[in-house]
């Protein structure tokens, strides 16, 4: 286990942001922390990035205790913050050089790493550009280059897709996979986006500072089982009661529609449309998503 978190608890004054969270990340895994904003992800990220100490609990990264040996942990993690962390008045190369110096790299060794990381991230022809002249997508790449410069075995990323358009997002995920495949790097990221979470090997779902569920996206979805049917109807409450009375089906009101989890979706749709002619404005069927998993466990939505 390259990262292990045990009974992590964090309080801001009287507010508990994290409560008894435990999980472990294997080497070479892309591990996602999924949850709505305010669910505890950012607090967890700040603790893992050694930006603050937890109120209670233990974290080990690459064999080092985060609280007792923060400097050792820092050498072994690359941190990509959600907010920008570049010096805009410096060029890409100057930013990377300063970063290298902060990590004890210098001279020819540093020059080689800057070469490699800028080539890998497609920044080779941008090295002499001032950061303030770069687009958001390119800046994000420089941030990642900065995080990877010292060859950390673990890369931490806070909401990596924030501010990226779909194309840049796809590209980013290609890099992340490549890194994992070619170097065995472990990636630990936070996200509140379902498509991003779907791309992780394993997920920890967080809600109000607590662990909701843990597993691969497929495993988590299998827990819901069957199909999910969404019904748009006139009066939610009336229809909910009628569904239960006539078809023995439990429905919940979500986002102005009725949501039904059912083993055999298409048969249920025929049944429900015939049973309540004219009462249903629209019907949609989908395989369970991570949103459904979250909804089942917490009664709340992620997005």
């Amino acid at each position, binding site marked *: 286990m390259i990262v292990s978190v045990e009974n992590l608890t964090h*309080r801001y004054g009287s507010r508990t942001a994290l409560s008894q969270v435990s999980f472990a990340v294997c080497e070479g895994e892309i591990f996602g922390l999924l949850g709505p904003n305010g669910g505890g992800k950012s607090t967890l990220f700040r603790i893992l990035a050694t930006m603050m*100490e937890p109120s209670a609990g233990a974290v080990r990264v690459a064999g080092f205790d985060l609280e007792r040996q923060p400097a050792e942990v820092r050498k072994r993690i690359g*941190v990509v*913050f959600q907010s920008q962390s570049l010096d805009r008045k410096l060029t890409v190369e*100057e930013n990377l050089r*300063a970063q290298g*110096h902060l990590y*004890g790299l210098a001279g020819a060794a540093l020059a080689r790493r800057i070469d490699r990381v800028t080539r890998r991230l497609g920044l080779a022809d941008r090295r002499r550009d001032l950061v303030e002249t770069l687009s958001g997508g390119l800046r994000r790449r420089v941030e990642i280059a900065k995080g990877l410069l010292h060859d950390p075995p673990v890369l931490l990323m806070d909401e990596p897709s924030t501010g990226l358009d779909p194309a840049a997002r796809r590209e980013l995920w290609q890099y992340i996979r490549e890194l994992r495949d070619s170097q065995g790097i472990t990636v630990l990221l936070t996200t509140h986006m379902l498509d991003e979470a779907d791309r992780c090997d394993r997920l920890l779902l967080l809600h109000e500072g607590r662990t909701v569920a843990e597993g691969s996206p497929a495993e988590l979805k299998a827990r819901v089982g069957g199909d999910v049917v969404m019904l748009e109807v006139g009066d939610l409450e009336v229809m909910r009661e009628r569904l239960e009375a006539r078809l023995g089906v439990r429905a919940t009101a979500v986002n102005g529609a009725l949501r039904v989890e059912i083993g055999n979706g298409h048969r249920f749709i025929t049944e429900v449309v015939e049973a309540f002619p004219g009462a249903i404005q629209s019907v949609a069927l989908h395989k369970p998503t991570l949103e459904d998993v979250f909804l089942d466990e917490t009664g709340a939505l992620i997005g």
Partner: protein
Amino acid sequence: MRPAASVPFWLPAVTLWQRELIRFWREKARVLGIVGSPLLFWLLIGSGYGNLGFFFPGALVLTVMFSAVFSTMSLIEDRREGFLLSMLASPAPRSSMVLGKILGSTTLAGLQGLIFLCFLPMTGRRPSGPQALAAIGVIFLIAFAFTTLGFLLAWRMESSQGFHAVINLFLVPLWLISGALFPMAGAHGWVRWLMRLNPVTYAVAALRRALDPQAGGGTPGMAASLTVVAVCAILLFSAASAVAGRKGTRSLA
């Protein structure tokens, strides 16, 4: 794949010092300000007033003080722009990062002091070589002490407005009773005591003595002045390193 070497102390300090200078150089308005403000001062004051000799050290200290303390506002900017985050996430020793930041601002404030010093002949005095060297040393020491003070003030501050308030409420009065405007010998009872307790008095005195070893008016001696300023600088730097290195359950940035 397994980086293990420790970060040498000087490397982060040098890189952060360089960064301050590069940033300064790329903002031409700041370059203009640092050269222009002493120039303007002497154009306006120097041509209209006869006896500037007495005020020279105090005016120079004021210039360095403002320049040093205000340039540490870059720390507030670093925090806002996020650069501080990546500094703090790195394994570099905190004291080394603090030193680099402070030396950057010290260099700039010291340079401004040097430019100001070039106008000394306008007061009718030409310093000897050793006097000029001593003055340069004193200027950089004072710049370092004020920069460190500025760093401590700026560390937890979110905005530059609070910063301005502190300077006006705290630093300007200290300067007013530092012997910059009137000699200690001419001050009455409790004011004289305040002057004696005021560290800025010793900064002004050290510079006055460096330029004029025979300075009168109750100016504290050179050895005592240098000791007070150096001790203040060391204490302030220790405090800045301690504050920046403090661990806590509150996020650092």
